[in-house]
């Protein structure tokens, strides 16, 4: 996507204020060497857990963020706060990095002649093109941090069904233990079908991000989430409730309930109230567990994918070299015009997609150190803006 005449986002600005008091006292550790690839192959020191707070508009993400930030400080943990919502008018907490410092959503709307949703999405897209800088900023501080809290745009699909949302998520996930916190509007999910609808969507997010999921039943001060726990625990009860509440055939509702039953086994949940502060200790305990799960499962998986990719790259290079040698032999030293791109594509039909995406990736990746990471994430996410 073209940025054109629009003034490129200003360099990342950071606010020192929100970082917890205790971190100011800890010594500034010198940057530890990571090795030539820029990526630690063994986690030499504990990395902060990144929690991306996602939820339907009105579920209370920002209020919850405020509560999380406050708890981090009272618990004497070290936190770093990011706001990715370009359209929020006032934040109840102070963010270390705020998308609004870099992109002005109203200007974006004017400049590109967009409506409010287009403006938010485009603002996020613009920010995503500079996201490697954000990750670098956090990486530089990682020895001093326990948690990185990320607030996302109001409407969930701006983050979950956009290329920039995927890019941002993957940028974090390939560098830090990352957990998705899905905020549930508990009072609004009281009917079985609405609850099912919400859970199906959360399941979609689990598959899309492939990261540990922490369900936060918010607003428990308004409506306790006991009903949810019962439904999550008792498949038959939930199915009966759904059949009562809808006109679906028992076959379909059973299949859907079965999917959800398995889904629940693969996530953690906690009841919280952003307003009263209930559930915070439990939240962070489950967050820590999710972080551990990430390291045991996802990090291993990520390393495996990286190793596979390296292997494929090496194989491709060797194949290209062999092809070149063949061509030289065939031409017997005469000058031959090689339609290189086409020949390579014919020989590497499987690599077609990878090549195209790598070309696209080169447009965005400015930092050589991050090239491998960018390629990985663009390839994984089919990155297009």
């Amino acid at each position, binding site marked *: 996507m073209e940025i054109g005449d629009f003034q490129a986002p200003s360099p990342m600005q950071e606010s020192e204020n929100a970082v917890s008091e205790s971190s100011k006292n800890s010594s500034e550790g010198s940057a530890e060497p990571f090795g030539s690839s820029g990526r630690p192959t063994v986690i030499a020191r504990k990395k902060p857990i990144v929690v991306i707070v996602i939820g*339907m*508009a*009105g579920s209370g993400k920002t209020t919850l963020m405020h509560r999380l930030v406050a708890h981090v400080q009272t618990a004497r943990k070290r936190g770093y706060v990011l706001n990715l919502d370009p*359209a*929020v*008018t006032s934040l109840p907490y102070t963010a270390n990095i705020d998308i609004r410092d870099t992109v002005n959503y109203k200007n974006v709307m004017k400049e590109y*002649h*967009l*409506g*409010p*949703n*287009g403006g938010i*999405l485009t603002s996020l897209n613009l920010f995503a093109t500079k996201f490697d800088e954000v990750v670098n900023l956090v990486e530089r501080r990682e020895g001093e941090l326990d948690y990185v809290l990320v607030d996302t745009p*109001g*409407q*969930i*699909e*701006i983050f979950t*069904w*956009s*290329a920039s949302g995927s890019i941002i998520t993957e940028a974090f996930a390939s560098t830090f233990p990352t957990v998705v916190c899905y905020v549930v*509007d508990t009072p*609004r*999910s009281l009917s079985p*079908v*609405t609850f099912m*609808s*919400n859970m*199906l*969507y959360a*399941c*979609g*997010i689990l*598959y*899309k991000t*492939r990261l540990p999921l922490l369900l936060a039943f918010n607003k428990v001060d308004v409506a306790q989430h006991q009903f949810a726990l019962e439904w999550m625990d008792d498949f038959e009860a939930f199915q009966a409730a759904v059949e009562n509440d*809808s*006109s*679906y055939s028992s*076959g*379909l509702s059973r*299949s*859907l309930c*079965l*999917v959800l*039953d*398995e*889904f629940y*086994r*693969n996530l953690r949940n906690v009841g919280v109230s952003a307003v009263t502060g209930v559930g915070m200790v439990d939240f962070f305990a489950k967050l820590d567990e999710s972080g551990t799960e990430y390291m045991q*499962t*996802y990090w291993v*998986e990520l390393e495996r994918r990286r190793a596979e990719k390296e292997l494929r790259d090496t194989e491709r290079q060797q194949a290209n070299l062999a092809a070149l040698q063949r061509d030289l032999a065939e031409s017997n030293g005469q000058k031959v015009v090689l339609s290189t791109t086409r020949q390579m594509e014919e020989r590497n039909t499987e690599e*077609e*997609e990878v090549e*195209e995406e790598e070309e696209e990736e080169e447009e965005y990746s400015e930092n050589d150190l991050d090239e491998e990471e960018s390629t990985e994430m663009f390839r*994984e*996410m*089919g990155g*297009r803006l």
Partner: protein
Amino acid sequence: MPRYAQLVIGPAGSGKSTYCQNVYQHCQSIKRTVHVVNLDPAADHFEYPVSVDIRELISLEDVMEELKLGPNGGLIYCMEYLEENLEDWFSEQMEDYIDDDYLIFDCPGQIELYSHIPVLRTFVDQLKRWDFNVCAVYMLDSQFVSDVTKYISGCMASLSAMVQLELPHINVLSKIDLLPSKRDLDKFLDPDARLLLGDLNQQMAPRFARLNQALAELVDDYSMVNFLPLDITDEDSIQFVLSHIDNAIQYGEDAEPKARDHDPDGDDGGGF
């Protein structure tokens, strides 16, 4: 005689409005009458003629300005306002459409409107009371369905809206024309449960094996989760999708032959 309606839903940017425009033009070219209704108060500019527009009743821009609401609060306000005025304003607009007419509703994208707020469900129930056969058309950008886990994610998002609407449901993968290689999409368009399961087990950690199994079975047992491809530049592709939707709402089954369909001088394509 029933009236017919498509409710075009899906995430922002998935191609809903483009679809409505192209279906309208396509129907013009085959001499079929359809009317497009804009239900998106945040919509900007239309290339096609819109028969009914919610922005004549209320617009997001006005609401945000006058009530000092953000984009989300404003949208919910608009939709709830529509809900309150269904009987009056909307039914007046609907009266113009005689029996056998076919409406295409271009809806706002936000999933919040389908999952938590009852407005769209109420709207659908009202349409049914007015004797409309309604089908939900869930549009998803095919460029996002680049591998099996994203395909599942798309199915879940669609189901999430579908369970609330309780309508016959067609899923469409749009922007096929923008894909570099259409081959990879085939396995999602006609999913084989075993292959799907194999892929899922490869992509997800081992603890997801049972969930993958349940999902593969769901996809296999219920065709309503399946996607149709749409290449908006290809008339045949548009007709293909349209035929499926028509089938879902039984359009054309009750139709009586119309005088104008006969061309006594031309080739009828059959003896009469």
